[in-house]
């Protein structure tokens, strides 16, 4: 049955070469943990991507209940966490996953650094990777405010003070981020928009570039 559906589609739009190109290519021996156990360090990039996918999925589901409004934000988080079935798990995935992504990015960066994989011709990919790292930190920072509890408020306060400490343009940056002089309703909606639209958009675009480059250039050779 499935085979026939697949054949029917494949007959018409010829999908086999497409997915073979994406999924069916060989990986060099030196990055395969099956041959050398220490090669597991080459899994960190994939694990980062995997956790990012979990973040995106769980985040999409959380927005079904979350309201970015100062009156209801905290109540809606409390509701989805305690009253909705599996709420604790789905929010837990997003909450803990946020830390896991950052840890994974960090490990991935260390591996790239210590295997010298950033060297010519892969310098551009390193730069894209650093941008991805900043975007992920930005996602962490903007997501922190959304539950609208005390920890969220003061963490954002601290973040904005840090932004303010930038010479000359510090005040501007902080006002732009907060949507005004203080942390309030406008800050929350802004952080929400940045967290669910602007940064994920940039993240997906950069990830695509990151992946296309690794396919073009291949994985760097053994040490």
């Amino acid at each position, binding site marked *: 049955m499935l085979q026939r559906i697949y054949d029917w589609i494949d007959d018409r739009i010829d999908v086999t070469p497409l997915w073979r190109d994406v999924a069916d290519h060989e990986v060099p021996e030196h990055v395969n943990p099956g041959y050398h156990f220490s090669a597991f360090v080459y899994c960190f990039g994939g694990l980062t991507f995997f956790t990012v996918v979990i973040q995106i999925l769980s985040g999409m589901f959380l927005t*079904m209940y979350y309201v970015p409004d100062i009156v209801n934000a905290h*109540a809606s988080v409390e509701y989805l966490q305690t009253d909705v079935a599996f709420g604790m*798990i*789905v929010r837990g995935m997003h909450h803990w996953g946020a830390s896991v992504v950052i840890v994974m990015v960090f490990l991935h960066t260390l591996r790239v650094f210590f295997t010298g994989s950033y060297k010519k011709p892969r310098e551009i990919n390193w730069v894209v990777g650093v941008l991805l790292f900043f975007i992920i930190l930005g996602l962490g920072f903007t997501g922190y405010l959304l539950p609208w509890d005390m920890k969220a408020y003061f963490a954002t306060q601290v973040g904005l003070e840090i932004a303010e400490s930038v010479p000359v343009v510090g005040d501007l940056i902080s006002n732009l981020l907060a949507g005004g002089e203080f942390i309030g309703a406008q800050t929350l909606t802004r952080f929400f928009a940045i967290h669910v639209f602007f940064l994920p958009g940039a993240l997906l675009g950069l990830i695509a570039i990151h992946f296309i480059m690794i396919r073009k250039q291949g994985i760097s050779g053994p040490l």
Partner: protein
Amino acid sequence: MEKNHNVSRRQFLTYALLGTGGFMAAGLIMPMVRFGVDPILQADAEGDMIDVAGVDELTDIPQAFDMEYEQDHGWHVETVQETVWIYLNGDEIVALSPICTHLGCTVNWGTDPDNPEQFFCPCHFGRFERDGTNVPGTPPTEPLHRYDHEVRDGRVLLGNPSPQV
């Protein structure tokens, strides 16, 4: 080399990987889907009976009464106002929902000059008899819903509206 493997090594590995991968994916997706569909699986809140009017206020002619109750939106509780048409049919109290069974507009009593003894829906000229039966040849396809009621200490208390058919 051994022969006649029913499942080749490669096939076994494929199944094992697909199985494990599928199990992990299901473990991830299942809670999220259950989370997302929660509203349709939540039991309907059984509302309390609501005090709407005094028995002595009722007449033979349907009158609109206000009905106020709390609606739980999960993280927000709202006070909802609804109207309900109540009249006496002999001794029997009849409480009809004003929601037109065509597409949900609000009906009124006697506002159609040609049919002063009927409920009238202005949206598509739907009409209902005094007992809520829909007039054939007008858009509504079923009678107005009727509220469960209870009389306590001379007050009329209403429960949930349910279809008359």
